[in-house]
């Protein structure tokens, strides 16, 4: 042990949205309170602008809450979160008008052969096999039912999982409160300027004159990257030209009925629309191209399909897709401050959550913190790049012929890693997974399948299994699933039970 190295003990987090709140809870929960200080600048800025008023998360959020002792039931009772079983997609493919990307398994492998390859084999035999028909999550979403998964690995109800739809403002409130109870100091003010010396941040100067001194600064200010951007070498590397849509209009609509337990992403000629229902509120956002629509036109299109009162005036933002080296000097950028990626598949939220978790694993143990930064940046940038591959996929494979933005987006990309995934799937239905990939093979396969991509040939290992065995196993699988979900309550009833404190975990 090297003697007396001064350890970083003062953490300053800037950002008043969910990114700042999550970082605040994470750091305040883990760091010893006696020796460390955690200060969060909760500004009124637009840190969550790139997320929209309601945020869809993947099942990984359950791990975040469990690890840090965040009470999921309390979030749901308080209206900060609701359950989601996946996302319904419509209008993306010429072949499949809609498809559902569920959380958890779709079907079970047989003899180690992934289910989607078995399904492809059966289709060549004339059977109509829809992947979602073998997913508990998809079946629950379709039938409006919900219950948490079973802990018993033998039960078919243990084969699905769920994510959460977060009411961003309420979720941030809840987490800031928790961070404060765990010893963080929450400062409500606006950022004035950033004091930088020798490539490091010394302090934040606040609008009302306060100076927040720190050893480690976490930039959770959203796409503007107010802290990270003040350091040399952390410039944003834009990849905006890769994507057809450069603006998003968003609105929050009041809702009274129990929310649907899934999100809906609908492609249309001018762009795509994402609907994320949560408790008492529905988030609507509409991605479009500024070359084809004015913000006014986009807002009209957004609101035309909204039934219900606006919670607040609609917003309209430029989306500047890009990334930067997230950890520079003593400043760690998380969420949109590190990378802006397309919100489909909950990628921005997953990157944010993984960034916070990775930071906990690599909390600096010395003021120098270069080793920690190197690893943080290596793993984070790899993940951002893979998220970008995924973000390109729905454009690259879209089936909307004869529409300007969509036609242009179908060209093969220069992204070798994405093209290799597409090519191998097209050839034989396998998907190579790489370090940093955020979806598993079954999810990639479901995406390809949803876009109407069919592999040119079936898999040899799937062919090696006798047909009768496949058909009878699938029939049994389906029967067991239907039987299992028939006992489960409606989503609304489950939420009412939970509100009364009666729902089984």
């Amino acid at each position, binding site marked *: 042990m090297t003697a007396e190295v001064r350890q970083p003990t003062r953490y300053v987090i800037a950002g008043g949205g969910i990114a700042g709140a999550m970082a605040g809870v994470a750091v305040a929960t883990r*760091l010893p309170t006696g020796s460390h200080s955690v200060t969060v600048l909760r500004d009124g800025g637009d840190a969550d602008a790139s997320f929209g008023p309601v945020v869809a998360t993947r099942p990984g959020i359950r791990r975040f809450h469990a690890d840090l002792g965040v009470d999921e039931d309390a979030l749901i009772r308080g209206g900060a979160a609701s359950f989601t079983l996946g996302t319904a997609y419509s209008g993306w493919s010429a072949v499949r008008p809609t498809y559902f990307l569920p959380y958890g398994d779709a079907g079970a492998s047989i003899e180690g052969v992934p289910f989607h390859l078995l399904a*492809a084999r059966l289709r060549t035999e004339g059977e109509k096999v829809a992947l979602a028909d073998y997913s508990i999550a998809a079946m629950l979403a379709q039938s409006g039912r919900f219950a948490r998964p079973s802990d018993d690995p033998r039960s078919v109800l243990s084969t699905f999982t769920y994510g959460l739809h977060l009411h961003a403002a309420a979720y941030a409130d809840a987490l800031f409160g928790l961070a404060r109870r765990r010893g963080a100091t929450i400062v409500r003010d606006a950022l004035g300027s950033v004091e930088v010396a020798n490539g490091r941040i010394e302090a934040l100067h606040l609008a009302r004159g306060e100076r927040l001194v720190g050893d480690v600064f976490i930039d959770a200010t959203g796409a503007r990257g107010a802290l990270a951007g003040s350091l040399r070498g952390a410039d944003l590397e834009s990849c905006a030209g890769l994507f057809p849509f450069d603006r998003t209009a968003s609105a929050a609509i009041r809702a009274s009925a129990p929310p649907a337990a899934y999100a809906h992403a609908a492609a249309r000629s001018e762009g795509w629309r994402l609907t994320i229902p949560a408790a008492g509120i529905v988030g609507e956002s509409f991605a479009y191209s500024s070359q084809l629509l004015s913000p006014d036109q986009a807002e009209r299109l957004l609101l035309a399909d909204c039934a219900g009162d606006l919670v607040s005036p609609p917003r309209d933002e430029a989306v500047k897709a890009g990334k930067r080296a997230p950890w520079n000097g003593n400043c760690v950028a998380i969420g949109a401050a590190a990378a802006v990626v397309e919100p489909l598949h909950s990628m921005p939220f997953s990157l944010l959550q993984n960034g916070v978790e990775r930071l906990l694993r690599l909390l600096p143990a010395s003021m120098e913190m270069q080793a*920690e930064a190197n*690893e943080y940046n290596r793993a984070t940038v790899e993940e951002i790049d893979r998220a970008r591959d995924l973000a390109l996929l729905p454009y690259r494979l879209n089936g909307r012929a004869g529409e300007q933005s969509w036609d242009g987006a179908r060209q093969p990309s220069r992204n070798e890693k994405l093209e290799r995934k597409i090519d191998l799937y097209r*050839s034989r239905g396998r998907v*190579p997974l790489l370090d940093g990939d955020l979806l598993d093979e079954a999810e990639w396969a479901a995406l390809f399948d949803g876009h109407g991509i069919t592999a040119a*040939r079936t898999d040899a*290992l799937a062919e090696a299994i*006798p047909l009768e065995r496949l058909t009878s196993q699938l029939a049994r699988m389906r029967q067991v699933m239907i039987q299992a979900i028939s006992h489960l309550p409606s989503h609304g009833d489950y939420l009412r039970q939970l509100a009364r404190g009666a729902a089984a975990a």
Partner: protein
Amino acid sequence: MPVKPTPLQHILIVGGGTAGWMTAAALAHKLAGLPIRISLVESEEIGTVGVGEATVPHIRFFNSALGIDEAEFMRTTKATFKLGIEFRNWGRVGDSYIHPFGAFGMAEDGVSFLHWWLRAREADGNHALEDFSLPVQAARRNRFGPPSQDPRSLYSTYSYAYQFDATLYGRFLRTLAERLGVQRIEGRIVDTALDGASGFIRSVTLASGQSVEADLFMDCSGFRGLLIEQALSAGYESWQHWLPCDRAIAMPCESVEDLTPYTRATALQAGWTWRIPLQHRVGNGHVYASAFIDDAAAEQALRDGLEGAPLAEPNRLRFLPGKRRRQWVGNCVALGLAAGFIEPLESTSIHLVQLAIGKLLELLPYRGWDPLDAAEFNRAMDLEYERVRDFIILHYCATQRDDSPLWNHCRTMSLPDSLAHKLELFRERGVVVNQRDGMFLEPSWIAVYVGQNIVPCRVDPLAAWIELDRLAARLADMAGACRQAAAAMPLHCEYLRSINAAAVG
């Protein structure tokens, strides 16, 4: 709609060593439902490398997938159980550590056990890391028992592998493969005929004049790469600048010591010796760098270290550490030593064969030959080989020895960037880089780092808060529990008898 591909009609495996018969048995089993003929050509004139062979736990999945009965397999191959590898004299002369098949201690409050241990060490250096590993404690006592399935039990914290006579294992698999329909062809290959247009292998010609045609050729011919290199010139990437050992002498001897449930690798001045305890004898070998020691001296060093009387004349091997630039070329896939050579320091040879078989089955070609299959196979296998390579290099570079030219070279050589990054992160911060692919996981890296005296210079700030008294008490409890649990296990030789796995005669 995917089409049924025209399956291969004939797969010819060239070479009947461990790799060849593993491939034959696995393919015959997995492809039993398809009309594919599988043959293996081998010559009794050509010896196999079949020395005593140590494995990693994955071999159990390979065996159980083939429906192999453990006790019968162990009786037939004179196998013993293996809980890990003891490394002697690697960090410094006189050092000993065991790399076990299991983790050290348990993570708690988001902090890895390594850091609880480091923190306790600051206060008093009483506990060695191995005190917190049940498999190490059992190994040190020559005890063995099967792991528990109950995750709450301490007996669930480890896994195991085998040490067996590779020649007998090959024979065992041959019986199995022939029962599954594999046709064995006796003969020495004297010529390979290529197709002029495609460059694919059309047939091989045996010394008898017989010509054997096939669609897919599996090159299991050993170092020389009869097909992949001699016929198809795949190219070879040498790693000798990082792994200077290029020769080996193997020589079995009588068992004298108690039957150890672990392999031993003892570093000498110009290489290292292995000791693999089987039921009926001990396999020994000296892996050395010809640049630093001559063959006679190397043989003498091996003889000097034998614990019992030699049972055979020395078997000499020459190799070049590295791998084929392409392990799959055209219609030929190389496995085992034909695919690459990484010295047997971490018992990786059989595992790499197993991985390649698994990958090949996932990407099994058809008669239309899509080059994407080979490209993906080569990508995945390159990554596996490179990650194993880095782990092996770690054993050489993480040394403090300065008693001989070999160690002076290794201590000061420049490293692959991927390894340099891993090493720096561990040294500075005690964090192991985790990646999706690569067979060695965090506990393995920790075992070797710490075992070779790479102790992180900083403790995770999250571990800083716990009171040392409480921590010391907890660690003492944990070490006590490991000791007790180890002492309660049967002796290795007794356990072998109790499950009827001891060879008769």
